[in-house]
């Protein structure tokens, strides 16, 4: 279980997160929605300490951390419990697909080489890239690169995988293959927090949807509730803008 408490973060005078509380149950898929600038990506990055919150606590499983007093060791511990899939994939450019997945296992988790290779190959097979083990990122399509990114996160066996707009940088025809992979691993009971603009995906896969705006959580609930009968005015407006109902009839 993951618990965020009173997470606050400002960039200069601009307060991006205002005392956010969020609980994610084990095995849950949480989708965070919201207009750009609403703080959803920042919140996700705080969970991995890629962004340092000014205030707040986090609990992942039995590991607890107060961001105000976090030392190097705590940060390292926190990062080992989560993995991140980036909008721009961020694969290590000078390493092959297999090496990308193996890197964390070898260097951080200190697995023996053949064990790391076995597990990495398995993960790449899972995302449908068994044939691309020795390809460099530059030789892969965006969709393939993102699938390597997912395999890299999966291989670390984290307690939660964070997805930061995993399909936003992709050509439309490549979005499907990536969403299919995410859907597949969601089915395996891995805890995930996903920031996305893919409404269809959120509706199908999420157990829990969070709508953020202006650095606060405006509304959260089951997808059927939030999409079906949103309570807040801001949520209604956002959903209308994203998936407008036709204003005319034929």
């Amino acid at each position, binding site marked *: 279980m993951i618990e965020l408490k009173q997470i606050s973060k400002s960039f200069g005078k601009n307060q991006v997160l205002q005392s956010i509380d969020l609980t994610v149950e084990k095995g849950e898929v949480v989708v965070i929605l919201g207009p750009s600038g609403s703080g959803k990506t920042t919140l996700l990055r705080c969970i991995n300490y890629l962004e340092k919150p000014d205030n707040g606590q986090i609990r992942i499983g039995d590991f607890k951390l107060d961001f105000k007093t976090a030392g190097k060791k705590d940060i390292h511990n926190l990062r080992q419990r989560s993995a*991140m899939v*980036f909008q721009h994939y961020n694969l*290590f*450019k000078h390493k092959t697909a297999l090496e990308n997945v193996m*890197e964390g296992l070898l260097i951080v988790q200190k697995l023996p080489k053949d064990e790391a290779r076995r597990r990495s190959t398995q993960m790449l097979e899972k995302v449908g890239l068994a044939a691309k083990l020795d390809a*460099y990122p530059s030789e892969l399509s965006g969709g393939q690169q993102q699938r390597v990114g997912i395999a890299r996160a999966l291989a670390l066996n984290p307690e939660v995988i964070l997805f930061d707009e995993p399909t936003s940088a992709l050509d439309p025809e490549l979005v499907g293959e990536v969403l299919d992979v995410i859907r597949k691993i969601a089915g395996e009971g891995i805890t995930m927090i996903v920031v996305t603009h893919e409404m269809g995906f959120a509706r199908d896969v999420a157990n829990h949807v969070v709508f953020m705006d202006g650095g606060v959580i405006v509304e959260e609930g089951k997808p059927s509730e939030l999409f079906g009968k949103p309570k807040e005015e801001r949520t209604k407006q956002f959903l209308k803008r994203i998936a407008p109902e036709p204003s005319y009839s034929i």
Partner: protein
Amino acid sequence: MGRKFDIHYLLDFLPKLLSYLHITLFIVAASILLGLVVGFIIALPRLYKIPVLQRASQVYVSFFRGTPILIQLFLIYYGLPELLKLVHIDVSRANVLVFVILAYALHSGAFISEAIRAAVNGVDRGQVEAAYAIGMSGYQAFTRIVLPQALAISIPILANLVIGNLKDTSLAFTLGAMEMTGKSQTLASATQHFIETYIALSLIYFVISTILERTFHYLERRLLRHEKQVAEPAVRYGKRRLWKRTLITRLEKGG
């Protein structure tokens, strides 16, 4: 203006000059290696924005960029012993090459630090984030992810620096260092065949520069093998494999 041009002198001078090539190359190698160390030390405060040191390294770079290398040579050759005298270290018997190498190391260090800074900043920020996200420490991320990519980016600049350094070492003769140019001075004045000497000398510099250029080009291609080659797409990869395959079968056949 010396004696009449005679090609025999040129052919005669070539091996004589070449016998001093190793000293020139030694100066280049030693000063570049030391320069890399200096460059790193100078670049780090600016990369990590360390308050006072950052300013100091800026001043260092400005000084070595803003003054002629010849003056730097003189300053170090004549100035350093005076400075060291103050702390009671006597270097008056030290080999002139020590000063030459030190001067070129400090000089190229300034330029190398700029190359390192540009290259490290040239590596996508996302690469470091990905490294952190999989749980790497700052040191691991730097050495395993940033440095290899930065090295590839910096190779063309480094090639310029090394070739520039090779040519700059010709100024070492002004301190009486007996390297190639120094030798050419004695040859020229002893025989009065100036043109032949300098043609021979420039030939050697030119050939060495070209070899260095080729080597760096090869190195760059190797380090950037992960990037798509615009000129020869995809095929290159297959070619290398083919080459390996034929080599392996040849070896297996024992021929």
